[in-house]
């Protein structure tokens, strides 16, 4: 794990609790993400997902611990780490196109205006936005279109790591579906690594190579790392028929429904490292060896 593309080492975040003391959001959290991997993180509201993401983005400093990307410690934000924020990440006074050129011009400062615009239009097109819609301001776009613009802006910059904070949280199920597919389309064929926060279990199964599960806060932990043993390319309507789908889904529901609370709030011993347990559920290896639902492999 120490040689992962992205390695999170003993991350601790504490905040003042407003009564003069401190509370610990998470402590000694450690995990790694490989290059090109799509990782989703699931956990209850308030457990510290956005906090982790902001630290990965370099937007805030952890109380303790380091994040290393390509072996170098992360300090401060960088164009190598693109972020799609949950809300308001578009600049409302710029048109959709200008919002994307804003990013592209920052990424490729030597390019001509035409080059910047061509690339922006191409990426907007990839997420299904073209025509006069790209000349409208965010306030004149639907929620789904806005989020498409954010995604286009992030991908157009070719960051090594893409961080998405509940990008589809405010969208209806139908729109979600189409944008999820667009996201997969844009991501596949790149070697970009994606770290995405979501509240939607089905979305996580559709998109991720691996799902990190967080226990409830305070003192939250990244308790498990669940491999999604469903081959790509995945299509929403087909994956539900895959033998692993419901097994994985049940496991996730069980965790979020029960065990996330049971495992919560354990104070760790000094210097202890909390790495997630790898969970691999695979029912396709033949009914003969009668797999238990949960096969835990300690790493």
């Amino acid at each position: 794990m120490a040689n992962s593309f992205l390695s999170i080492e003993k991350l601790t975040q504490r905040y003042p609790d407003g009564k003069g003391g401190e509370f610990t959001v998470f402590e000694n959290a450690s995990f790694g993400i490989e290059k090109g991997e799509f990782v989703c993180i699931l956990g209850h509201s308030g457990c510290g997902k956005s906090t982790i993401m902001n630290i990965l983005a370099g937007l805030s400093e952890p109380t303790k611990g380091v994040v290393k990307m390509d072996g170098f410690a992360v300090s401060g934000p960088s164009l190598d780490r693109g972020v799609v924020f949950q809300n308001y990440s578009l600049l409302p006074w710029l048109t959709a196109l200008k919002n994307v050129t804003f990013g592209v011009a920052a990424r490729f400062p030597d390019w001509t205006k035409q080059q910047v615009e061509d690339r922006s239009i191409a990426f907007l097109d990839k997420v299904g936005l073209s025509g006069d819609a790209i000349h409208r301001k965010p306030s004149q776009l639907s929620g789904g279109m806005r989020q498409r613009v954010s995604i286009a802006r992030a991908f157009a910059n070719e960051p090594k790591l893409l961080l998405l904070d509940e990008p589809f949280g405010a969208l209806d199920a139908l729109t979600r579906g189409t944008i999820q597919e667009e996201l997969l389309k844009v991501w596949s064929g790149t070697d970009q690594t994606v770290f995405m926060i979501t509240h939607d279990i089905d979305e996580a199964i559709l998109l991720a190579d691996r799902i990190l599960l967080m226990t409830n806060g305070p003192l939250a932990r990244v308790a498990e790392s669940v491999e999604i043993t469903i081959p790509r390319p995945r299509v929403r309507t087909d994956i539900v028929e895959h033998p692993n789908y419901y097994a994985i889904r049940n496991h996730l529901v069980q965790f979020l429904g029960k065990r996330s609370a049971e495992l919560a709030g354990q104070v760790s011993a000094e210097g202890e490292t909390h790495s997630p347990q790898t969970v691999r559920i695979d029912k396709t290896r033949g009914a003969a060896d009668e797999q238990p639902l949960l096969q835990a492999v300690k790493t």
Partner: protein
Amino acid sequence: MDLLSENKRAAIWSIALLIVGLLVWEMSISAQAINTGELTEYELLTGADTAKAGVPPPSEVAVKAWQELSNPFYDAGPNDKGIGIQIGYSIYRVLTGYFLAAIIAIPLGFLIGMSSVAYKALNPFIQVLRPISPLAWMPLALFIIQDSEASAIFVIFICSIWPMLLNTAFGVAGVREDWVNVARTHELGAFKTAFTVVLPAAAPTIVTGMRISIGIAWLVIVAAEMLVGGTGIGYYVWNEWNNLDLTSVIFSILMIGVVGMLLDAAFGLLQRRVAYVE
């Protein structure tokens, strides 16, 4: 009536009110004029019939306006200049003082908005200086600057600085952190962030401050010019009052209103240009 749009109906009402107002004014003046027919000898002696001293009817004001506006830029000595020249002086002073204030208030407001230390350090001064009537500075300005022209500009400067300073600080401090984070994740430097993110985000609030300031500056210039004299619309009003030429006084009052409205409308236009919907 229902067939007409709201705007048209409002316009009809405005015109009707104007006509009624002017008629009432005109008629009340002519009623007074009839009264002068029955003046006592004493009243005649004390000059109560002097037409000049009475409030003129709107028709007279209109004639005066026509005369003045058909030749606004004549210059026949220090006490007899066209209305265009007088207003020109006033606008020149207002804009000079105003832009000097903007040059200082907007960058300083940025600083105060960005840094809470700067805000806390400067706030006591602002709170004490802001409520001072700009005209209260006049004697000090005249004494120190020793020049009435520059003193008038200084008074405009001091009165227009506060709304711009406070609104800029307020607007900059209120810029969404998410937007600043967008700039940070794109590795924009401090200046680039200030110009491409903070300035457009705070622009509506800043322009509102600028609009308030220009309004105050136009209010204050009239009073300031009455004090310093020489030129300008404020001086003109006062001068015509001394001449007991009420027709000119009323005409210039109207002109002050019209120019103030135009200045405000210009900033209204700017405000609409920088507005955005979140």
